[in-house]
């Protein structure tokens, strides 16, 4: 097992390096390169030359890449030209907020979609099944940014809190600015953005649980379990569900890029102080070191989650052997 994890970890390294190369090359593709952000009417060509030298941009590209990569490994991710603070600090401050939102949305979606998927598979073509498929289709077809806007219109603009007369739910941010930490306040800020992301995940999750369950239900060992005289509940929950959830674990690893996409949109709409919003703002202001940092951090998280998924899958599925 230890050996397997080590081997997978070693396999992940080339992927991260490849992604870092891509990120680096993309940045250099931008006209004007990383210097573009410094260009302004007040700056002379001589100043630009000097900056170019100071920033180490006057050496060949592969050496620049090597310098950049070794700085990254030493923990020096550059400085944001917007805030003047280290990129790594900017990212680590926000990474928790993004993961917090994504994980809540992810678990919330599973809590809805597993019971829904199981019921709809066991009662195929019933009303519940129709409802589940409809939800899956709606989740797939609704633009999530628009759903965010509609939820804000309904719960922030239209419906008022009967006690205070203010909006029922806050339309942005993670907590009320200037107030002390309060669980209720945090929860209120979480509801709308989390609902959007839950709905975004729900489509895929319902479909996967439903089809996973349908596959399992038609297998011989389920018929055997029924024939043994076990009641339906035990067969479905103990025999079928546990096996049908296995494929779901694999998609968790594959879903992380999608979750980051969703988080970027949700964070931008709900002014949620996460990595997606940081990336969006840094693009707008041509803050290259932040853009590179976020992309790289995303890549590392995605590769790690893929790894984690494989390991968990191996633990849960005794048919997988590590050798």
């Amino acid at each position, binding site marked *: 097992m230890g050996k397997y994890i080590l081997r997978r970890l070693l396999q992940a390294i080339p992927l991260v390096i490849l992604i870092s190369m891509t990120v680096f090359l993309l940045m250099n593709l931008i006209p004007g390169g990383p210097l573009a952000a410094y260009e302004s009417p007040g700056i002379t060509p001589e100043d630009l030359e000097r900056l170019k030298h100071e920033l180490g941009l006057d050496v060949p590209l592969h050496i620049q890449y090597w310098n950049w990569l070794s700085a990254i490994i030493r923990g020096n991710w550059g400085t944001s030209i917007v805030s003047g603070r280290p990129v790594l600090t900017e990212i680590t401050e926000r990474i928790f907020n993004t993961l917090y939102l994504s994980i809540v949305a992810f678990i919330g979606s599973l809590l809805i979609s597993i019971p829904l998927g199981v019921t709809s598979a066991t009662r195929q073509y019933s009303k519940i099944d129709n409802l589940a498929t409809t939800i899956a289709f709606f989740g797939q077809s*609704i633009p999530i940014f*628009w759903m965010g806007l509609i939820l804000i219109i309904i719960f922030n603009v239209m419906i008022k809190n009967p006690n205070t007369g203010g909006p029922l739910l806050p339309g942005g941010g993670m907590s009320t600015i200037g107030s002390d930490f309060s669980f209720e306040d945090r929860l209120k800020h979480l509801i709308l953005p989390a609902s959007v992301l839950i709905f975004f995940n729900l489509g895929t999750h319902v479909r996967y649980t439903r089809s996973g369950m349908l596959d399992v239900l038609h297998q011989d060992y389920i018929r055997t379990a029924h024939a043994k005289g076990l009641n339906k509940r035990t067969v479905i929950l103990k025999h079928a569900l546990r096996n049908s959830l296995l494929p779901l674990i694999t998609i968790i690893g594959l879903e992380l890029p999608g979750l980051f996409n969703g988080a970027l949109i949700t964070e931008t709409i709900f002014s949620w102080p996460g990595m997606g919003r940081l990336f*969006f703002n840094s693009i707008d202001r041509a803050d290259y070191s932040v853009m590179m940092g976020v992309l790289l951090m995303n890549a590392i998280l995605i590769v790690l989650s893929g790894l984690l998924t494989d390991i968990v899958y191996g633990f849960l599925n005794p048919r997988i052997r590590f050798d």
Partner: protein
Amino acid sequence: MATQAKLITDPLASTAAAMPRERTMRELVWSRFRQHRAALLGVSVLTVILLLTIFVPIVTNYDPLKTNVDHIREAPSAQNIFGTDELGRDLFNRLWAGARISLMIGVATMMISVMIGTIMGAVAGYYGGAADNILMRFTDFMLSIPQLFLLLMFAQLLRTTNEPALSGGPFPIIIIIGVLSWMGIARLVRGEFLALRSKDFVEASRALGSNDARIIFRHILPNAASSLIVAATLRVGAAIITESTLSFLGFGVQPPTPTWGNMLKNAQAQMTYAPWTAIFPGLAIFITVLAINYVGDGLRDALDPRTIVKTEK
């Protein structure tokens, strides 16, 4: 055939059953598709949307770019049934002008991703070995980067070129979305090719002296068409959503050209006093994509020979 006997309620089937000939593929697919009510509804909705997209701009002869300062942010009324926006432009007319661009982007983007994905998948699946390995690792690599982040970066890249042809119009957007969304198609086509390449009809064609290109395009690809058609249909919907997201975030088609996405760009700022500006363009995207996805689902059922044909009650 058992399925034919079950289908007597179907007028097409009854004529077919009366005559001793086999039903054609088209008849079979159509009779299966007809049973998918949501898909039929999807087709009707799409037809209406398409007709409105074609005819509304012609009939009303409204200039979607013309501003009117006397009628800023008017709520929906008999004159402007969807209301007006922050520049006094009629939202109903702009919606159908925008539909032309949004739908065109959806279809054109699908074509690009289907083209790239088919070539990638066909080469990987047909030749296997090293080609398969390299192309599929590349596909996995592309899938492991969040697409929206790359799209935003490419869009920004195009914007900074200051080249009028490259920034703001629909064509660069079509290219970048297309180039970044072929991966699913490539995997699908590869799977089909892997399954089909060792079939007897491929051997037969090779024995007759066909070259690789002929086998790939004339013999294997048509057999993979069913799943490709379904995937392509769903890609149109996905591309419409991607374009609208990009335009909403300000990195897609630039105003004043209307698309469903950039019509929503200012919606968040004026949500409190002009909520109608946020509702209608989004509803148009939602309904269109929903209809496309149901049609895709109907096609999946209709084209899959394993689908059990239900008798209508």
